[in-house]
Each structure stands twice: as C-alpha cells, then as structure tokens.
C-alpha cells in the first residue's frame, strides 16, 4: 500500500512515528482519492528518501513550472492540517449556539474523531493507526496540565488540600483494588469464558481504569457551574491521582513480569509511591525556583521572557518522567511555585503572552486528544467480551460512589466545611475517565487478553464522557431546584437583594472565610525573608509605573475639579447617557407606577448595578481568569470612594490630610512590599488583584486609601 511506503520513509526521516503514520494515512488516502496517486506510485519503497527523490528528479530533466513535492513538507503539513481540523471543529460547534449547552464539547470532538476514524477505515479497509502513547504523554498532555497548574486558584486548592489528597490517594487505591478484585470475581464465573485472566491482570487493568482523568473532568465541568469548592475538589483530585496511578500501574506491570512476588516487593511499592509523589514535587519546585531566578535577569530581553516559563515547565515534566516520577505532579508544582515570582519579574506584555499561549496550547491539545480518541476507537483492536465490559462499567460507577461516600464520611467529621450530599453525588458522578486510561492500556505488554482490556477501556471512556458528561448538567440543575417565583421581582426587591449580596460579600471578606493556617503563615514568613530577596528582581522600588500613573491621575483629577467646579459624575459614555436621559424625560410626565416605566427601570438596573465578585468560575479552560468580569466596575468604585473621601476632606478639613499622612507612613514603613504590589498589579482587573494580594499574608498587604487608586490607575493604563 502506498501509504505504508510513505509511512516508512517518514519514520526514518522525521522519527515521529505516531503522528506521521496517523496523518500520513489520512492525507495520503485523501490524496489518492483525489487522483494524485500517480505521483506517489513512482516512488520506490526503499531506504534513503533523498535517493528516491533524486532518482525521481534525474528521471525527468525538464523544468516544470508547477510541480508537487509533497514529502518535503509532509510531516509539518499534516500536523498543521490536523490541528486546523481540530480548531475548525471548535468553531463549528460554537457557531450553533445551543449545541454546547446540551452536548459537552468533548463529546462532539470524540464524535468528529469517530467520523474521521470511520472515513480512514472505510478508505483503507484497515484499522487506522492508533494514537501513539508517546505522542500523548510527551506532547499532548503537558500543555493541559501546565495550564491547569498555572491557573489553579491556589487559595481554594490549599484550603482543601487535605480532602483533595484523601480523595486522590486513598480514593484511587480503593477504586483500584475494588475494581480489580470484583472483576477477578467476575472472571471466575465459568460462563463468561474469562478464567484465564489472572488476578494480577485484573489489578493491572483496575489500576489504569480507576484513575479520574483531568482532561475529561475539566472539559465537562466547564459547562456546569458548580461552586468553587466542589470544582476544586474534583479538579485537584483528578490531577493528583496521577502519582498513585503511575505507581500502581508500574508496580502491577512489573509484578506481571516477575515469576514470584515477595512481600518485600509490596512494601517497595508503597515506598515507591512516596518517592514518586514527593520526588515529583521536588523536581517541580526546583525547576520553578530556577525559572523564577532566571527571570530576574531578563530585564533587557523582554521578548523571550515567556519562553522561560514554558521551557522550564516542560523540562520539569520531562525530567520527572525520566526518573519515573510523576510528571504531572512535577509540572503542577513547578507552575504553582514559580507563578508569583515570575509574574513579579516579567513585564506586563510578557505576562499576557504567557497566559494566552498557555490557554491556546492547552486548548489545542485538548481538542486533539479527543479527536484522536475517536479515531483510535474504530478498528480491529478490540475484543468484545460484553459481560466483562458491562461489569467494568458497573463496577467503576459503584466503587467510585462507595469510595466517595466512605471518604466523605471521614472528611466531614474533621472539617468545619462539610461536603454536602449533593456535592458527594457530583463528585462521584463526575469521575470521568479519559485519554490517560486509553494511552496506558496501549502501553500494556502484549498478552493474550490485551484486546479485551482495550475494548473495555474504550467503552468505559465513551460511556463516561458521553453518558455522564451529557447528563451531569441536567442532574446538577435538578439538584439545585430553586423555588419558582410567581412574579418578577419588584424594583425594590432587586435593589435590596443586590444590597444584601454586597453586604454578605463584604462580611465574608472581613471574617476571612479561609482559615489562618499555621503553615501558611510560616510559608509567608519564609517567603518574605528569604525567597523574595533571591528571586525577585527589584527589591526596593524606585518610582514605578504605577506611582507615575497615580500622579498623572491626580493631576487629571485636579484639572477636572477646577473645570467642573463641583463634583459630578463622570459621563464616560456620553451617548448612552443622552439616550437614557431622553427616554426618561419622555416618561417623566407619566405616572411612575406605569409598567413601561417599570421595564425601563428594570433594564437600567440590570445593566448598571454593580456585580458582586466571583460571578464566574475561578478556573476556566477557555477564558483567562477574570476576563469575564468588568474591569471598569472596580475602577469606578474606587474613584467614587476616592471622591467621597475628598468630599469629606473639603467638608471637614484635617481628616483627609491625616488619612493621607497615615497612608504614606504605612507605605514608607512597608516599602519592601511596594515592589511586589506594584509589579503584581500587572493584571487587568480587580479580581486578579485581589487574588494576587491574597497570596501575600495579611501583614504585608498594605492598602491605604490612595494605593488602591494605583491599582485602578494601572488598570486604566492597561486599557489605554
């Protein structure tokens, strides 16, 4: 077959087997169909692709104005086409608005992959090449995990770290052994014809099928908006169970190959787990610190700053994989560790670049994974033993549910924040399996029943992604049924409700709804005394851009005051203002209780009432954090507050200057804080500002009245 010839050549040439064969298959089958096959048929299947080309070139000495030289660009061309397909598919989904709300994107992508696989199968009458595990683990998985680790909201994560670790470690082990043993029990039943699948094989299968997959979980949980804590629990668990999965998988695999198993081997396995997990964290942190240190010196070469972030993270992943440690844990530790220092050191534009590239790559990876999953499903790799498959699915669900129930029982006894039963259901139901299981099953050594496992894995993945993925949203809605209102809320109700929301948000912030943990404070202390001096570029900040902006703002404000003569509101959108004004003046003569006026007011309120914080999810695959929230809102509030302070000042002298003096003394006293504060305000909105500031301990979070204005000023500058 021609495509095998091409495939072989590419193998020697480019070395990237998996992609090339997949793409080569696809494209060459299309090209053949298009009739360009004549060109390929002249090639000889031999070693040395250059020789072949030269031979061809020598054969026809004429100059051709238009010639086709496909192999020259084949590999990059096909890779690009594949990515293009993925991205176009994404556009297509979002064009039809209603579709993503019913069917999660991951399902649609798998569907597209299935179609592609079917096409390839139909054209070639052979199984399409399977996604190479190397490609998945080395190229497709790291961007996603890096994105997850970098944008992980660290406060909820560390607050719930105990619960997350419990679910990840104990829960996974519970699932593995549960599924393994029960499947072994099923295999004992004579009628199914599975007697030859040993306990060890079942445990091995259990270890790879039990792990919840971060890619799938992320993809589905994006669509449903659950509360932050729940999101972080499932998400964190799916990321961290990689360490357990790696250890158990490798352990059982080595057991399969060993003739006899001694107890010391079992203990070695347990010890290995700690090595893998902690080793991964250490590797990640090392690279993270190195990265932070490197960015300290990049002041003159701003353009390549983003590169360091990616290089170091990827290196940490590869290094950990090299030592058979957990690469996922390493890359997460690297991202979380370096984040605050790198963000303080690099420029604003580099920061934006880093964020956007990360999102872009993880998005592409994500899409490709699901498409490849679909493609690889079609084919003759499967042995369809339906009882086994059926029971696998059942046991996966049952053991997950049991595990969550039991663990939550323990968690709730020790924590103030309980995990409610609704949460438990969502955690249990949201345990989706994805591409990691798929790749691991292909990595299995070839033994007689491998195809059975492949089939079972495929079905489980498809079931979880399609059935669970599609139904989780209606179920979540069902569980959160609110009382239906008979009539629309009145204006007064709307206002008061919003008032109460703001009030509650403020009270929550005051009461500090995170615990003041001992270790967190210790870490902050360590950070401010040692790490910062080492890893941050400028320690005592000369006039930063923020201070300059603030001065500019002050001047502008003074001019405004002088011109206006009094404090009025700033018409930032004059056109809107005028139109509203005309509408209102028309209605003035009418009775205020008339319904038209009501609608108008409702509309005005809906548009203009300030939103309370945290209206969107803290982590989202498709948007940068905080992008959905209005930036201007925070600015306006700050400006209004500032103005009200000034009004007080003009009204009663002495208060404002005292405030200013206090503020400045506070600023001077904590001058070492300023650089981080100033530099860290490189983000475009208050949510991030808040999050960034929260990362510092309360003791260094000096926000006198006017330095909040600096934040607003910087934000405005970034908009300009």
């Amino acid at each position: 077959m021609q495509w095998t010839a091409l495939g072989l050549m590419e193998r020697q040439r480019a070395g990237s087997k998996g992609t090339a064969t997949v793409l080569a298959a696809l494209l060459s089958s299309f090209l053949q169909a298009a009739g360009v096959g004549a060109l390929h048929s002249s090639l000889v299947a031999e070693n040395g692709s250059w020789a072949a080309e030269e031979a061809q070139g020598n054969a026809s000495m004429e100059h051709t104005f238009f010639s086709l030289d496909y192999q020259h660009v084949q590999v990059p061309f096909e890779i690009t086409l594949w990515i293009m397909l993925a991205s176009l598919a994404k556009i297509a989904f979002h064009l039809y608005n209603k579709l993503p709300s019913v069917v999660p994107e991951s399902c649609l992508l798998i569907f597209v992959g299935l179609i592609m696989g079917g096409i390839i199968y139909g054209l070639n009458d052979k199984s399409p090449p399977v996604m190479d595990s190397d490609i998945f683990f080395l190229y497709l998985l790291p961007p996603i995990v890096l994105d997850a680790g970098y944008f992980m909201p660290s406060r909820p994560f560390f607050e719930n770290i105990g619960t997350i670790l419990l679910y990840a470690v104990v829960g996974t082990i519970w699932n593995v052994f549960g599924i393994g043993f029960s499947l072994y029990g099923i295999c004992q039943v004579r009628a199914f014809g599975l007697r030859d699948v040993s306990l060890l094989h079942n445990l091995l299968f259990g270890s790879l099928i039990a792990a919840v997959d971060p890619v799938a979980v992320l993809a589905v949980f994006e669509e449903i908006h659950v509360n932050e804590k729940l999101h972080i629990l499932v998400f964190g668990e799916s990321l961290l169970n990689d360490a357990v999965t790696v250890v158990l998988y490798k352990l059982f695999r080595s057991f399969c190959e060993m003739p006899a198993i001694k107890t010391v081997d079992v203990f070695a396995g347990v010890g290995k787990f700690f090595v893998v997990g902690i080793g991964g964290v250490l590797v990640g942190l090392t690279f993270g610190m190195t990265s932070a240190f490197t960015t300290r010196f990049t002041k003159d070469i701003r353009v390549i700053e983003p590169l360091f972030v990616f290089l170091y993270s990827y290196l940490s992943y590869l290094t950990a994989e090299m030592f058979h440690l957990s690469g996922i844990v390493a890359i997460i530790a690297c991202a979380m560790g370096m984040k605050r220092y790198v963000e303080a050191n690099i420029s604003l534009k580099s920061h934006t670049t880093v964020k956007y590239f990360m999102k872009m790559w993880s998005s592409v990876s994500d899409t490709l994974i699901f498409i490849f999953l679909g493609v690889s499903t079609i084919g003759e790799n499967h042995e369809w033993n339906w009882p086994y498959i059926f029971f696998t699915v059942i046991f996966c669900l049952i053991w997950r549910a049991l595990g969550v129930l039991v663990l939550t029982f323990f968690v709730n006894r020790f924590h103030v924040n309980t995990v409610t039963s609704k949460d438990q259901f969502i955690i249990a139901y949201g345990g989706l399996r994805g591409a990691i299981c798929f790749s691991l099953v292909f990595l299995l050594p070839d033994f007689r029943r491998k195809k059975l496992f492949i089939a079972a894995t495929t079905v489980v993945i498809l079931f979880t992604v399609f059935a669970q993925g599609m139904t989780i949203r209606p179920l979540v809605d069902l569980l959160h049924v609110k009382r239906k209102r008979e009539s629309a809320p009145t204006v007064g109700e709307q206002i008061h409700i919003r008032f109460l929301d703001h009030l509650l948000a403020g009270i929550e912030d005051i009461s500090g709804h995170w615990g003041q943990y001992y270790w967190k404070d210790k870490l902050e202390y360590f950070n401010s005394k040692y790490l910062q001096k080492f890893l941050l570029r400028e320690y005592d900040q000369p006039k930063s851009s923020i201070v300059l902006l603030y001065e500019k703002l002050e001047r502008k404000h003074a001019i405004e005051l002088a011109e206006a003569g009094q404090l009025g509101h700033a018409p930032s959108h004059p056109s809107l203002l005028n139109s509203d004004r005309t509408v209102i003046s028309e209605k003035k003569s009418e009775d205020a209780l008339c319904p038209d006026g009501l609608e108008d007011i409702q509309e005005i309120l809906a548009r203009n009432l300030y939103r309370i914080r945290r209206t969107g999810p803290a982590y989202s695959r498709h948007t940068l954090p905080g992008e959905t929230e209005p930036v201007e809102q925070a600015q306006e509030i700050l400006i209004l507050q500032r103005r009200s302070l000034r009004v007080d000042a003009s009204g009663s002298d002495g208060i404002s200057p005292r405030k200013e003096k206090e503020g400045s003394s506070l600023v001077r006293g904590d001058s070492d804080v300023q650089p981080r504060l100033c530099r860290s305000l490189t983000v475009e909105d208050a949510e991030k500002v808040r999050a960034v500031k929260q990362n510092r301990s309360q003791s260094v979070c000096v926000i006198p009245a006017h330095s909040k204005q600096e934040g607003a000023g910087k934000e405005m500058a970034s908009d300009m």
Partner: protein
Amino acid sequence: MGGKKPTGVETKEGITDMLFFFSSVSHSQITRLYSRFTSLDKGENGTLSREDFQRIPELAINPLGDRIINAFFPEGEDQVNFRGFMRTLAHFRPIEDNEKSKDQNGPEPLNSRSNKLHFAFRLYDLDKDDKISRDELLQVLRMMVGVNISDEQLGSIADRTIQEADQDGDCAISFAEFVKVLEKVDVEQKMSIRFLH
C-alpha cells in the same frame, strides 16, 4: 467545648463568657474568628480600627465597603474589640433548623431573620430615625450603581422603590415596610456566611 488547647481567647475575653453571650456559637468558630481578628489587628492592642478593616483588599472594591466597616463600630467609637467584632459577625450565622423550634421565651438570637434584617436596615438608615428616607436611599443607590446613570434616573428609581414599599404614606420606608418587601426573599440564606456553619 472540646478539649482544645488554650488559644489566648480565654485570657483576653473569657471564652465561657463569649459562649454564653453568643448562644450556641461553637468553640472552634470562636477560635477561628479570633485568629482572624488578631491577624487583622496590626497594632496588636486587642482592638481594630477602621484602617485595619480598610486594609482588606476586597473591601476596597465593595460598593458598600465603608458602610459595612462602620457597622462594626459602636456609636461614636473608633475601636472595636473582639466582642464587638463577634457581635456583628454573629448576625450572619446561619439559622439552624433545630433552633427554630427553641423556646420563644429567651432573647431572640442575633442571627434570627428579624435581627438580620434589622442589621441591613441600619446600614441604610444612617441618621437612625428608623426610616429610610429618599435621600438615604439615593445615597445607597448611587453607591451601588455605575456612573452611567444620571441623577434624574436615580431619583425616579428611588421614588419607585419607595412607592412600592410605602404603606403609611410618609414617603419613607419604615422597618416593617422593609421587612414586607423582602418577605419573599430567602434572607436567612442570603445573609449567612457558610463557613460559620
């Protein structure tokens, strides 16, 4: 009261006193809030001033930030001790189901629906005449709404609000009228901090 190690609350405020004063607030909740109190208290003199509150970054961009801070301070004072801090926060404890059936003879707990609403009412009513006048409403509205709305529009919104609520015709909202407006709203849930549960 579990067997927890002394946290210093005993020496400063007397935890048994606290537990008695704020009925059925648990030991761990008090400890937690006390550690929050101390972390806010930069001057380490056992009281919080307004600047201590203003140092909380989220409060700076909360439209009602200043008013909320003022709610903590008793009349005319500039410092609030831990008891005052707790007292204000106790309003926001969730109402537990078993409390609803408790005897009605004792003093109403601070986190009852009526007291919660009273707390909110006091934030509107600055001059403490037990009525939300049009001006007070306008002030709050202005704080909550963007700069795009003109004074006339705001005025008409305020008029509308008062008209809907006002039953005795005094062009102001009394506490009873305020309660009536919010009768369909789940105030218990809207004014309860989850973690204190």
